[in-house]
Structure formats: C-alpha cells, structure tokens
C-alpha cells in the first residue's frame, strides 16, 4: 500500500515471523485507519492469528516495523501494545465472571474515594457505576444494570461488555486500534447482529477496528476493507464494495491468484 502513514491508527510494514524454519508471516503489510473496519481473513494456518498476535504484542516479528498513530513502536508484550492504545478482545473475552459490569469495565483504572479513605484504596463505587454507564452510553449501547455480575449476562451482552471495555481504552488513548478475534463465534443470529451494529458504531466514533474471522457474512456486513492472508502472505487487500464472496473465497482457498500489486 502506498498511503501516507500519518493518519493510520495502526500500520505494519514488511512483517516477517519465523517459527523455526516455518515462515508464518512473509513480508506482510497491513494498516487500519481511525474509523475504518478491516476484516482479516484466511484459512486455518494462513497466519491471521499470528498477525493478530504481532499486532497485540504477544509475538515480536522477526523483521518489519509497527507504527501506531504514525510513531514507530516496539511491542515487547501485550502490555506495551495496550499502552500504545492497541487493545485486543480475545475470543475468551477475559471477563471476571463473578464481578459486576462496572467492576469489569473499570478494572485497572478504578476510581477511589477522595480523602483519607481513598489513600487507603477505598473504591468510589458510585463513580465506578457512573463512569461505566457514561462509557457504555458514549458507545451507544445499553446493557443490563451495571451492578449485575457478568456471569448473569447472555453471550451477546458479555461480548458487548468485553468490546466496550477495550473500546473505551482505545478512545482514552486517542490512538491505536481495536483488535477483535472471532467476535461472533459463539453467538446466535440476533446477538451477532447486535455485535455487528456495535462494531460499526465504534468505527463511526473514530476507532480503528480489525476483525479476524471465518465468518464471511459478518465481514461483508461490517468491514470497509478486506485483507486476505494465504500461507503467511497477503494475497488480497480490497475495499469490501469492490469485491464479492466468490473472489474472497478464492483468495482464502488459494484458487484465485494474488492481486497483481501484491505479487513479488
């Protein structure tokens, strides 16, 4: 891609990653801009999870550069990535089941009371609820009461909480990207629609979103752009409206040749 990188939320260039002798990623370029939803597709073993792990800081690439908001970064851990505003929502959601929505949303940046009680680490539960509610509203979602334990939510609601928690952190940084790993894998039809809607809303609020999925209908529903990996190489990078299901399936399976500008 030849775009100027300045506006990119997250930009990876020439990423190589070797597992021993296996080249899991081979010169992959990838970028996502604020307000854009990019779907990352590929068959099992094509390298999409590996690329996701590079973006989220879980793996360090053997070669290549990563930029967040135009600045080069070096992620040594998921924490580094999170500190730069790159937030990952894992398939397992990583929620604290026994804790309520407010606790889950504010975990790690809990408001404490003012004064001596605050010095002792006493939580300002009212502020926790208020902030959670405000953040959910800012994303345009209403959930169950924020005092409800997460374990008492439906699958869709849990997904919404997990997405909201990460989205809030991206927004707070003012840069970065939200990485979603199979966000609808365990959901039914109606709940999938909810999550699709939420993903679009987050993009409208200027968040850069990357969705890794096997689910083609989801990807055509939410993505502005589709990136396909095959055997560790990028074989397609197209605007969603310029392609169709058959072409994408062709790239995923390898039946269709890589786009001309991507062949080296």
């Amino acid at each position, binding site marked *: 891609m030849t775009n100027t990188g300045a506006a990119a939320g997250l930009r990876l260039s020439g990423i190589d990653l070797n597992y021993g002798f296996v080249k899991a990623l081979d010169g992959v370029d990838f970028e996502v801009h604020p307000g854009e939803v990019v779907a990352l597709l590929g068959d099992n073993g094509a390298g999409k999870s590996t690329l996701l792990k590079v973006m989220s800081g879980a793996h360090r690439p053997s070669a290549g550069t990563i930029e967040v908001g135009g600045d080069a970064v070096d992620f040594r851990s998921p924490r580094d990535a*999170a500190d730069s505003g790159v937030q990952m929502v894992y*398939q397992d959601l990583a929620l*604290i089941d026994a804790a309520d929505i407010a606790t889950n949303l504010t975990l790690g940046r809990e408001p404490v009371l003012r004064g001596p009680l605050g010095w002792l680490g006493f939580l300002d539960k009212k502020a926790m609820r208020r902030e959670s509610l405000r953040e959910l509203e800012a994303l345009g979602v209403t959930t169950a009461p924020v005092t409800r334990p997460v374990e008492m939510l439906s699958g869709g609601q849990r997904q919404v909480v997990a997405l909201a928690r990460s989205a809030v952190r991206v927004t707070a940084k003012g840069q970065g990207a939200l990485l979603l790993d*199979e966000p609808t894998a365990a959901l039914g039809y109606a709940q999938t629609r909810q*999550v699709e*809607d939420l993903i679009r809303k987050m993009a409208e609020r200027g968040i850069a979103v990357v969705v890794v999925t096997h*689910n083609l209908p989801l990807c055509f529903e939410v993505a502005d752009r589709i990136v396909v990996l095959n055997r560790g190489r990028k074989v397609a990078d197209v605007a969603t409206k310029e392609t169709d299901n058959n072409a994408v399936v062709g790239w995923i399976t390898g039946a269709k040749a890589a786009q001309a500008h991507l062949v080296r």
Partner: protein
Amino acid sequence: MEPRNDTEAVAAVRNAERVPDSGGSNGVKTLVFLRDRGIMVLWLLLVAVFAFWAAPYFFTLTNAALVANSAALTAVFAAAVAFGILSGALDLSIPGTATVASVVGGVIIHNGLPVWLGIVAALAVGVIVGAINGILVQRGLNPLVVTIATLTVMGGVAQLIAGGVPVTGLSQLGWMGNTQYFGIPAPVYVVALLFVVGWIFLTKTRAGVRLMAVGGNIEAVRRVGINANRYRILGFILSGVCASIGGLLVVATTTQASPNPSVGLLFSALTAVALSGMPLTGGRGSLPRVLVGALIIATIASALVIKGIPPYIATIATGSLLVIALAFEKAMSSAVARRLAPPPTAALETAPATTTQEA
C-alpha cells in the same frame, strides 16, 4: 425464555433488535439468592430446629457464647483458607505458619520480652511465610505442592525454635483467650474484628476487588495491565497473617505454644469454607458466609453435646452436610448458568461460524 423485565433494560445495542433475556427474571433471582444465601438459611433452620429439639439449654445466650467461642478458632483458620482460595490458590501451609507464629511469639513472651513484640513477631512470621509461598507460586510452581512443602518445613522450624518441647506458662495472652468481656468470650471479638476488616477489604477496596479478580480470571487482570502477581502474593500474605492470628489464639486459650502443627484445624477450616459454598476454583465467595460455615459446625456439635449424643456423630453429620451443601451449590450454579447463558445456537444466516483456532 421468560418475558423481559422492562425496568431492568436488557443489553441490546440501541435501535438494534432486542432479544429476550432472562437476566432480570425472578426465577433466576431466587436461584441466585439460594446459591448465595442458602448457607445462612440453612444455619437459621438448624438453629430453629435445635432450639426445640435441644430445649431448654440450646437456645440461650450462654450457649450462644459457647458456640461462638468454639467456632472462633475454626473461623480464623477458615478466613486464612478463604483468602488463599479467593486469590486463586489453596494454601495448605496454614497449620505450619500458625505453629511457627505461635512458637515465635511464645518464645519471645516466655523470655520476658514485651507481649506486643511477641504478637508483632508472630504476625511477621505470617507475612514472611505467605510472601515465600506467593513468590514460589508466582514462579510457576504448583500452589498445592509449594504449600505442602512449606507446611513440612515449618513443622521442623517450629521444633527447632521451641527446642522440641512446647513453650508453656504463657498466660500473658489471656486477655484474648479465656477472658470474657460483657459476657462474650475474647476470641469472638478477635474473629468479629478480623471478619469485618476482611470483608471491608475484599468488597470496598481496590486491592481487595483486584485480589478477587485475580482469583477469578488472572489472565483477564493481566490483560488490563495490572501486575496480577502482586495480588497473588498478597493473597498468600493475608492467608499467612490469618494463620498467625489463629496461632496466637491457640496460645491465648491454651497458655502454651506447641511445636506440632495441627492439621485437624486445617480440615475443619476447609469444611467451613466448603460449607460456605466457596468454590475452590477461586474468585468467588464471601467472608460472612465462611463465618456462617464455621458457626454451622459449632452449632451442630453444640446441639449434639447438649442431647448427650457422642461427638463422633457430630463429625458424621458435618461431613454429610458438607456433601449436601456441595451438591446444592452445584445444582444452583448450573441451574443459574443454564437459564442465563443457554448453549450457543448455530445461526443459519451467519453460517460458517467455526471457532477453530489456527495452530
């Protein structure tokens, strides 16, 4: 699906299609109430039944004080077990820590040094042993094995410090032992203070909430950028401190510090914790319920003693009750889970929703 309760809005993306959800329905609320408060209901039932069955001696203030006193030691050790489990690890070193703490405190007091120094030293033993456990576990060693090892080592250390014989004549701690204030035995005050402080810590403070979160899902806590290991170690330290307090209580009531760890106390503490419905997987449970668990054991024992039934019947009853409580808790939890999160259904329109992970 039950009708949606409109006062408690269901999660739905605004303007999006709203799906029915039973999260706020009364059936689930009842189940959750039974799961979380069933132990208290059970205890009140036991008290009510015993009040008639073991009348007139059971339901008296004097007997209440006796029950509370005999529950006290179990309760303190149960708190130690609970802090460990809540932070995600079963700490078996508790009797060892308690023994070393009591021997260290005992030797200091026995040699004429100030009593407060003995208490501080005993508590410090708890902090140190807890920190050692925590650091070892945080290095990736299995908590069960690590704490069994610490238990074994501590048994030897206690013998070493005490010179192989109990430290006797320690009446200086009598004010927290066999003394009564306003008709209530001193250990009951210690337990009350410990549980109130512990409960406030776990539910009202940031460190407490994070400690429980670490027990519930340590990976989730790590991913939001919290140093989760610190809270694991904190859990072991709190467990160690509670064990030390238990050790001091033993010294206070028996006026001697025995260098032999009492594993039996650990098991009655575990029973109280299990009765409280606290799953050993961690991150869930409450201290008040643990206290009720300890009270149930003492209540059953008391009623059977009053009726002149041999004490081994009490242990049979307690053991059976434990299994029943466990089965009940499991039934409630799975009933709640079934109603709230029905198994994922395949969605036809969004078809190939495979969850296969790449290798």
